[in-house]
């Protein structure tokens, strides 16, 4: 009798667990994990840095938004305070940062790379709203960032990689380098930056990946 009850118990329990797991799949685990990360892993640490001699050329994954528009390039920055346009010369006149960090791809590979640029926080308005959206000039690739990651002291608008000006396949003339996020957030050829209070759309999030994409 107790045998039959046990088998029945585990059988029914198993069915209940499977039903429960199916319910769990209806919530987005990514959003749930984002909430946990934001609670437990703050404030953000600095990513490890490496000697520049360790730097290598990373793979050139992600060519969306890199066609055309290189000659007429300029950077549009918008916030609730207003909009402005910057040239590469304007950006290069701002304080420089050089750093050698590890670029990590969702695919699972990583590469140590040296970068030079100016911090994204140098373009942020005082009292910046909660989110930042960056997109290519043709708006075919776009990423959304939480403000804390965008203002991180290693989040760079870079124009140099491994001592050379960026090549087109690596995002010339200006790309984002954000070591606290997966490579998918390191958008190439930035055309516009918008500080906004709405959670911005994100190219890879729309294709099933984690919006937060933190490392």
């Amino acid at each position: 009798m107790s045998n039959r009850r046990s088998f029945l118990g585990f059988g029914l329990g198993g069915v209940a667990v499977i039903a429960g797991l199916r319910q769990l799949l209806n919530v987005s685990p990514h959003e749930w994990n984002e909430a946990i990360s934001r609670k437990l892993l703050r404030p953000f640490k600095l990513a490890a840095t490496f000697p520049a001699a360790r730097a290598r050329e990373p793979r050139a994954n992600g060519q969306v938004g890199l066609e055309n528009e290189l000659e007429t390039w300029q950077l549009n920055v918008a916030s609730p305070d207003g909009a402005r346009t910057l040239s590469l010369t304007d950006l290069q006149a701002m304080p420089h940062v050089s750093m050698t960090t590890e670029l990590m791809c969702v695919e699972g590979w990583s590469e140590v790379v040296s970068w030079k640029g100016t911090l994204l926080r140098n373009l942020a308005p005082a009292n910046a709203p909660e989110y930042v959206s960056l997109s290519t000039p043709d708006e075919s690739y776009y990423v959304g960032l939480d403000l804390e990651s965008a203002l991180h002291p290693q989040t760079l608008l870079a124009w140099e990689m491994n001592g050379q000006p960026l090549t087109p396949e690596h995002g010339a003339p200006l790309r984002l380098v954000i070591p606290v996020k997966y490579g998918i957030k390191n958008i190439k050829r930035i055309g516009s930056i918008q500080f906004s209070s709405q959670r911005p759309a994100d190219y890879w999030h729309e294709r099933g990946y984690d919006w937060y994409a933190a490392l």
Partner: protein
Amino acid sequence: MPPKHPLAIRWFHWLNFPLLSLMIWSGLLIYWAHDSFFAFPAWLYETTGIGFRLAEGMQYHFLFMWLFAVNGVCYVAYTLLSGEWRELVPGKDALAQAFQVVLHDLGIRKEPLPKAKFNAAQQIAYTGVVLMGLGSLVTGLAIYRPVQLAILHQVVGGYQNARNLHFLLTVGYVGFFFMHVGQVVRAGWPNFRAMVTGHE
């Protein structure tokens, strides 16, 4: 008569089976995108449908990891609090005794094994697989948040090392599974029934 296996342990055991299966499956969806440690042949990905599903793999892996970890922590906590660990943790002569178990199982040693709930080979296997679980948790967290959990990332020797160890541990689980099922089949129905009902 008290059960051979306490109800709690039976639950942890039977929850672990689907959870670990889901972790291995979703892990393979992730591994496909950069199979740097061991490249499975392309036909395997194609026939099993586990290629080109990285986003899905990450989504499932990062959900079930919590359940897998919590189940494992509960199991260890229960064995410690209930005293069940005394049956499970190998003693100091376990290696020599386990060798006798192997000889016995291969039919070389004819005398019966000493009576115990778990023999030394079982103790080594069951404790070893729990330590492997800890290894998967640590390497997994090092891969999941390599910047924010930089300490773990350093302990396991960097991103690629962490991935390789994480994969090797999975190979270990698969090996454990086949050995375990083989031994359960050999031991027969009453032994299996005890893991469900508690009684042999």
